[in-house]
């Protein structure tokens, strides 16, 4: 069974999905970060494939991508890192990235390689649903990959039903009309939107992302969905780590989970 599907069956609430950009802060940090996240208690990891022009991302994720590219990160290199990593972690791994680098790699080859390497799901925010249906849907199903479409506060009910039908694994629920970036609070208007979607009783589980940054926002998001996705705040923690990454990663995940860390 696909690891994402298995995860949601085993643990249908408080799923913590952490996003980071492959090759950041250093080129070869990708695999150690995933392993540290697993040890710290994350449920799911979303690995960003760095891109020169990430339209949906805010300054923090953009800067991490720019740095990763400067570090020499590329899709073939990421696949090498994932090949080494997969036997050493049981975390479900989702790749997130923009369509252009995937097209240049070869779209079908990309999907097949992902499946071979034990990647569990994909998020390609600029791949429109009609293109997906026409060219990729059957392939993704045959390869048993997850595929997450996004919904936003502006997405119509009719369209949300279509997202529910097409998404495999989970739906990526964008918390707010915005690009990615950490915010400190969730507004009443956002709660209304969360409730509206909750009331639709969709078949596919939902993870809320964008603006989830700390224990408070994570907990609130988890009241209205199976879990949440944290990106920019985690990338900032990596950037601020200074020395070894693992203690910073552990501290970060424990803070989100509300686990008390003894003070020495």
């Amino acid at each position, binding site marked *: 069974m696909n690891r994402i599907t298995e995860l949601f069956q085993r643990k249908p609430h408080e799923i913590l999905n952490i996003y980071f950009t492959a090759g950041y802060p250093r080129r070869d940090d990708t695999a150690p970060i995933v392993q540290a996240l697993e040890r710290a208690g994350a449920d799911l990891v979303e690995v960003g494939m760095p891109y*020169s*022009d990430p339209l949906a991302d805010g300054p923090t994720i953009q800067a991490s991508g720019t740095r990763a590219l400067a570090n020499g990160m590329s899709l073939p290199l990421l696949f090498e890192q994932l090949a080494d990593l997969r036997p050493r972690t049981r975390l479900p791994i989702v790749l997130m990235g923009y369509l252009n*680098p995937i097209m*240049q790699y070869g779209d079908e080859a990309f999907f097949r390689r992902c499946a071979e390497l034990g990647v569990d799901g994909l998020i390609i925010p600029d791949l429109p649903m009609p293109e997906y249906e026409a060219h990729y849907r059957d392939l993704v199903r045959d390869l048993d990959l997850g595929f997450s479409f*996004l919904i936003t506060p*502006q997405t119509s009910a009719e369209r949300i039903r279509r997202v529910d039908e097409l998404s495999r694994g989970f739906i990526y629920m*964008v918390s707010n*009309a915005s690009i990615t970036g950490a915010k400190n609070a969730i507004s009443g208007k956002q709660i209304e939107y969360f409730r509206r979607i909750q009331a639709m009783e969709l078949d596919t589980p939902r993870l809320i992302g964008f603006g989830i940054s700390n224990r408070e926002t994570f907990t609130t998001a988890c009241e209205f969905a199976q879990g949440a996705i944290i990106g920019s705040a985690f990338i900032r923690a990596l950037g601020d780590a200074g020395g070894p990454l693992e203690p910073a990663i552990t501290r970060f995940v424990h803070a989100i989970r509300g686990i008390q860390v003894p003070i020495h």
Partner: protein
Amino acid sequence: MIAIDERGYYGEFGGAYIPEMLHANIEELRRQYVDIWEDDAFQRDFRRLLRDYVGRPTPLYLAERLSAHYGATIYLKREDLCHTGAHKVNNTIGQILLAQRLGKKRIIAETGAGQHGVATATVCALAGLQCIVYMGAVDIRRQAPNVSRMKMLGAEVRPATSGSQTLKDATNEAIRDWINHPEDTHYIIGSAVGPHPYPDMLARLQSVISEEMMQQLAEQTGRDAPDAILACVGGGSNAAGAYYHYLNRPEVRLIAVEAAGKGVHSGESAATSVLGTQGIIHGSRTLLMQTNDGQIVEPYSLSAGLDYPGIGPMHAHLIASGRAEAIAIPDGEAVRAAFFLARKEGIIPALETAHAFAALDHLAYSADDVLVVNLSGRGDKDLATFIPFLDENR
């Protein structure tokens, strides 16, 4: 038949590769732009402003000394005489009327050289709407006079500090702003690029250029079509307008002039049709300059208006299908062509436009050939670039 299909493709180029956060806005535009365009009241307002405010029709001028030099009949379509100094305002007038009909209160735009930014700031002042222009931090330094013009017109100029800090990044920032303001904002894109319906909308709004050209040629020559039309192409809006009514007239050669920068293969060029491969940029499937890994490459041209790493999907299709020919002109030839036009005809063209004039040196002529060069903009904004070349062009 050259036409856009109902999904927004010209052949295999075009479409709308956008994140969900933009879907509602793009869908609203897609559903409404044709109806608004075909609405009598819209056309009445659009035509009135083009006439009384922009100064249309722009003249079709027979350039006699240039014609004598090349041994052909050369007409200049004088878009440089438009209010604000370039064809860009045809589009912004149309889009501000559209934004009003969509009930939008806030206008955003990207700009490279500043011409589109000025044209947007102008129409926002005219309509009394808030205007925010994104401009690469590098371009803000290169194009100080246009920054001041935008500010004088009441616009806020926001520096794009991501990536290479030029036009591509200003476009990214404008798109991000639109994601953050999904309800009250209209994005006036400045070229025939971006997700469907923008390329078609831009082409329609600029099509007044070839509409007038047809009528003026008929009056002046007795036939409504030239043998060739030359236009410079960055994203391609002036070329789209100059070609529009001739797209399905195969007897008219369409010549798209790109910027070769320091040479097509110098590593510092913007010759997208030669160096580009198929991919996605700013929501459109088209030709773009990129690495083998699909990272978008920063182009180079001395002209800030042509250094865009992609090309509009209509032009990608015209070139890929052989309907249009592409010629790439290096910086030096463009500068020389600007001086040549200034001395022959008393017209200082924009540096972008000068590329189209330089292409005249690359064609063979028969005595009865009739050509139109789309003189898309005037060169006042480029004086600082031209001044160092004064000595060698005495």
